């Protein structure tokens, strides 16, 4: 090995999206030397694409809002599968996190009395999303980017060096986490190995605390709103380092992605369109969502178009339109309409805002949507309806962490944001991700800082681990014929990627069946063998083929986690729909599927190193704290919970023999 | 002249600009394939026509006032002793010496010239078309060094605001000219085609003047809290709306100035007769 560039930090944050930046700000403000590593340029992370808003129960638009209401909405949206402690912290802390952004310079849209304006979104009882037109994510990310610059300016004033305590390593990809096995029984994180995309040179970070904030996995699917960054790196890095993933079967398909032209298929159409009055129609011009209100939400949504339309003006006396049902419901409804032949010419349905609002108003409220359709599809949304269909959008599953500190099973390894699991249960509500990033980004930064301060001995990076990781990272350049136990065949990373995407989309997509998922697992096994044969041409300088080859390893591991989990969960809930098991099953509610990495030698050492296998096993969820459970109507809980689980609910009469009190609860 | 901006010499010129060391080595200094040289060329032609016409007319010292009481804007206010040749043309007295090199409206013309010369739009126009800095976007400029408006004389562009104040006064005078022209000394209230020409001209002059960036700034742009100054905010919104068309007004008014003056000159010289519509 040639000389490798080395850096030493207290906290290494992998990912410069909302979660990563918030974690880094916190760690740095606690006085720790912090590095941020990200695959793209600083300020380009996926968070910039978030459009609709950031949910926080500030009560600016409706005073009745409170963290309890937000908590309830979140749990309902996730069909009671959420890690309730995370949902609680999230609902309680989100307003403070949003207000904090204003002190960094954020400029949200305002109410008449000068506070932060809040908008409606699916599944939220009250208008709750702080927003800036339809570019909220950009505002969030830019604000935190500028906060980081401000902290660097402070350091500059003090030390003459902008990067004295906080440095961003942009266009640098982490390929492996490094551990010190000598630190404690499970070992502890000691650092990470990565490469500069620009030069292809390797770089080693030693850091006793690593915060993963790498976002999602959408690039394993063909039709997705996600960017190339979403290759599940954090998920896979954590697995390989010994952490667990949970809930990987839950993948959110956003109901409204663009469907035409083919090259932009999947690009998101913000839920804000519906929040601001847009409605879904099928090819008969019918507002079909009224036919799709599921039993668990009966009574909460309008039953006639008139009532739905009145709701936009008067939310006290009318129920909301079913166009704003949680995303899983709407996505499935669209899927059914298209399947049954009532779709639009390009295989979607119509989303109509043109007939419901004046052109100027549309341009003012939804400028980027107007722009996006005009530029990319030649459609003027102020004059004609959009064509939309489901698109892979978000992964609810992720690294299992302690809710309060963000720490995973592996000491020193923290996670926050989309790559962490549990917060959203089986389905995320729109707007709950941006707030999640802020709340748990900060907590992970804090957790990491506390962990580092409390350490007695800094874990050390072992030279042999660095060498092994370096060999794996550079393997795609080895000529196929020089590889051990090999056929000499060379695989093209682009081809493999395209195959993976198509397969995942078709077999483990929005609607799943046992046979298809099993088929997917078999094909994933084949891809796993082929990925070893990937060969890339050219040199290491900014070589996208190589980058993709390395990302493929992670996509495969994560795809296996999704497929294996999807096979096990024999029910339909949120982001997981099994055609062969269409209903909710209360016996599955209290169980969580945990994915871990299996290095059992079954595939031979080489394959195992390139893409280790995963195993998925069910475990019991921690029951919700009684005071939180009491926030719900017994009648509602009964739709989700088993009888035994509700024995303690205050709505239950003490004598289990008597029927339950129909009103019950404090909600 | 605009095409000389293109230096076909490629990277031989000592590695300036897009040929600086480290930048992508590309032979052509611009790869623009559209007719990027057309707008600066058109601007040059347009401005030269106006300058030529205006110079000739300013020093002609004839045909500036028609008996119909039409005074051309190029001679307003007419304050030279020479204005006596056309009784009724001078509304504000006559005191400047009559000399072929002193325009009759020597009080206003320099300010109007400087107003337009320092106008943000015209600056853009002549920086692009005359100075070629740059002739068009992503087309290299020919200059070895560039300091923009940081040094004398261009730093003086910053006093544009002053000429705006002056232009306001002159716009009022032009308006006065246009209005008094409706009152014929013998026929009373009249409307001729010339009146309408003067009126349209003065309205457009107002549009140009009011859409000025300095105007936008003083009306309200300089405020940080619009919410505390609702009236000025309203004014700023109006001026801002006009301001988006400032360039258009800049060209339209060059045209209407020429047409108005030409009309007055033709009537004054007796080449055409003004059509009386009312009175």
């Amino acid at each position, binding site marked *: 090995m040639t000389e490798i560039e080395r850096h030493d930090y207290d906290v290494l944050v992998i990912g410069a999206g909302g979660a990563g930046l918030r974690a880094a700000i916190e760690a740095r403000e606690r006085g720790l030397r912090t590095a941020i590593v990200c695959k793209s340029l600083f300020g*380009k992370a996926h968070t*910039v*694409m978030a459009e609709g808003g950031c949910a926080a129960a500030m009560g600016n638009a409706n005073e009745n809002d409170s963290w309890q209401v937000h908590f309830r909405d979140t749990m309902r949206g996730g069909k009671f599968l959420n890690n309730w402690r995370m949902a609680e912290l999230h609902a309680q802390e989100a*307003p403070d996190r949003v207000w904090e952004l*204003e*002190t960094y*310079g954020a*400029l949200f*849209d305002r109410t008449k*009395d*000068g*506070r932060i304006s809040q908008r409606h979104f699916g599944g939220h009882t009250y208008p709750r999303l702080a927003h800036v*037109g339809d*570019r909220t994510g*950009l505002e969030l990310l*830019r604000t935190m980017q500028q*906060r980081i*610059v401000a902290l660097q*300016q402070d350091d500059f004033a003090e030390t003459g060096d*902008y990067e004295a305590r906080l440095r961003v390593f942009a266009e640098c990809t982490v390929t492996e986490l490094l551990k010190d096995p000598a630190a404690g029984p499970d070992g502890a994180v000691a650092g990470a190995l990565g490469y500069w995309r*620009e030069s292809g040179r390797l770089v080693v970070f030693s850091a006793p605390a690593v915060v993963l904030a790498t976002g999602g996995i959408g690039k394993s699917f063909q039709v997705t709103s996600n960017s*190339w960054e979403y290759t599940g790196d954090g998920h896979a890095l954590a697995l390989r380092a010994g952490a667990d993933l949970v809930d990987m079967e839950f993948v959110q398909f956003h109901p409204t992605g663009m469907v035409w032209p083919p*090259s932009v298929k999947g690009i998101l159409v913000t839920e804000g369109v519906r929040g601001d009055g847009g409605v879904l129609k099928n090819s008969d011009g019918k507002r079909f969502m009224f036919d799709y209100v599921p039993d668990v939400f009966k009574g909460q949504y309008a039953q006639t178009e008139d009532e739905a339309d009145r709701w936009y003006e008067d939310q006290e006396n009318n129920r909301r339109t079913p166009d704003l049902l949680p995303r899983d419901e709407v996505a499935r409804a669209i899927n059914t309409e298209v399947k049954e032949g009532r779709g639009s010419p390009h295989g979607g349905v119509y989303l109509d805002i043109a007939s419901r609002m004046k052109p100027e108003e549309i341009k003012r409220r939804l400028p980027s949507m107007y722009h996006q359709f005009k*530029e*990319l599809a030649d459609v003027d949304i102020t004059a004609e309806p959009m064509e939309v269909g489901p698109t892979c959008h978000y992964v609810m599953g992720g690294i299992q962490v302690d809710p309060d500190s963000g720490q995973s099973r592996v000491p020193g390894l923290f996670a926050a944001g989309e790559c962490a699991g549990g917060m959203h249960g089986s389905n995320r509500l729109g707007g709950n991700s941006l707030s999640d990033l802020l709340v748990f980004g900060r907590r992970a930064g804090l957790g990491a800082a506390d962990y580092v301060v409390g350490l007695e001995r800094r874990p050390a990076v072992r030279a042999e681990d660095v060498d092994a990781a370096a060999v794996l990272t550079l393997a795609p350049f080895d000529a196929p014929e020089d590889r051990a136990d090999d056929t000499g065949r060379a695989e093209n990373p*682009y*081809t493999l990627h395209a195959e993976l995407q198509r397969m995942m989309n078709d077999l483990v997509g929005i609607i799943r069946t046992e046979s298809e998922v099993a088929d997917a697992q078999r094909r994933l096994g084949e891809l796993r063998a082929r990925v070893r044969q990937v060969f890339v*041409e050219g040199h290491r*300088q*900014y*070589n*996208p083929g190589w980058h993709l080859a390395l990302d493929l390893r992670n996509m495969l591991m994560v795809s296996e986690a999704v497929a294996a989990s999807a096979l096990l969960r024999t029910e339909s809930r949120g982001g997981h729909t099994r055609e062969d098991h269409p209903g909710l099953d209360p016996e599955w509610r209290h169980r969580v599927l945990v994915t871990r990495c299996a290095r059992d030698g079954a595939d031979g050492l080489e394959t195992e190193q390139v893409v280790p296998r995963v195993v998925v096993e069910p475990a019991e969820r921690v029951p919700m704290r009684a005071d939180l459970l009491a926030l719900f109507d017994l009648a509602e809980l009964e739709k989700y919970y088993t009888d035994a689980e509700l024995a303690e609910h205050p709505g239950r009469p003490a004598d289990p023999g008597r029927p339950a009190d129909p009103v019950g609860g404090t909600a | 002249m605009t095409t000389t901006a293109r230096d076909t010499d490629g990277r031989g010129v000592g590695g300036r*600009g*897009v040929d600086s060391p480290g930048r*992508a080595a*590309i032979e052509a200094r611009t790869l*623009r*394939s559209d007719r990027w040289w057309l707008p600066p060329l058109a601007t040059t032609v347009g401005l030269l026509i106006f300058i030529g016409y205006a110079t000739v007319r300013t020093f002609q010292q004839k045909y500036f006032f028609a008996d119909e009481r039409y005074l051309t804007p190029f001679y307003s206010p007419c304050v030279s002793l020479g204005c006596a040749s056309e009784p009724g043309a001078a509304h504000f007295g006559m005191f400047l010496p009559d000399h072929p090199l002193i325009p009759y409206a020597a009080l206003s013309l320099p300010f109007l010239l400087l107003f337009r010369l320092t106008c943000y739009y015209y*600056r853009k126009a002549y920086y692009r078309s005359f100075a070629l*800095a*740059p002739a068009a*976007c*992503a087309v*290299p*400029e020919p200059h070895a*060094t*560039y300091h*923009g408006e*940081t040094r004398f004389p*261009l730093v003086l562009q910053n*006093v*544009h605001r002053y000429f705006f104040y002056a232009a306001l006064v002159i716009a009022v005078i032009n308006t006065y000219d246009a209005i008094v022209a409706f009152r014929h000394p013998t026929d009373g209230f009249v409307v001729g085609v010339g009146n309408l020409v003067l009126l349209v001209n003065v309205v457009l002059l107002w549009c140009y003047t009011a859409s000025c*960036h*300095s105007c936008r*700034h003083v009306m309200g*742009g*300089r405020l*940080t809290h*619009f*919410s505390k100054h609702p009236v000025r905010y309203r004014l700023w919104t109006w001026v801002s709306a006009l301001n988006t068309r400032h360039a258009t007004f800049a060209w339209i008014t060059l045209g209407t100035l020429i047409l108005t003056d030409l009309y007055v000159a033709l009537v004054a010289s007796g080449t055409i007769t003004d059509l009386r519509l009312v009175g």
Partner: protein
Amino acid sequence: MSYTGTFRIWRGDADGGALADFRVEVNEGEVVLDVLHRLQATQTPDLAVRWNCKAGKCGSCSAEINGKPRLLCMTRMSVFERDDVVTVTPMRTFPVIRDLVTDVSFNYAKAREIPSFTPPADLAPGEYRMAQVDVNRSQEFRKCIECYLCQDTCHVVRDHEENKESFAGPRFLMRIAELEMHPLDVADRVPAAQEEHGLGRCNITKCCTDVCPEGIKITDNALIPMKERVADQRYDPLVWLGRTISRRRG
């Protein structure tokens, strides 16, 4: 509806390079970036292109197409004729790294030189009150996706490497304007805009506005108003006189 199009793409690095011709399939509705991706997948696996969102939201894929600074993901193939040669080069104001990827660190360095948002000392989080009309102007500037196309096209640095030192560029002069117009920012940013960040070098020729993919009116709404504010402080004798008098009155 597919056809085979001709692309002329700059390939190389800081040590040199050249335009190379490619024939590649183009399908209906595609953008230039789609075609580059097809090239990567079929002919040139190592063609370096920087991109991220492919939706015009992140500002990563800046390059020059037929000599004009543009986003690769927002330039539709339908704007070209089928037999047009589409020339794609990296941005020509920044050092090249490889193929279409440039080193944009100049912009990050400039970003650091602009003093950050300075809130009033006595305002707690949650107490911020701002009227929508007061934030509108700064919000327009915050639409910026930092594609740096404006920085790329601005002749002040494009044609004069030596000016990079003293000129922040339209993106960051606009950042100053954004903070200057922020209803709660308490810092005075005007003198530094002129003296340190080179506002005076801008000759308002509007190329930045022309290329901005977000349609931000950089020149009209940020640069010229800043120049006017500079004029207020330094070049307007009336204001100066008024201030001197009121200062004397106390």
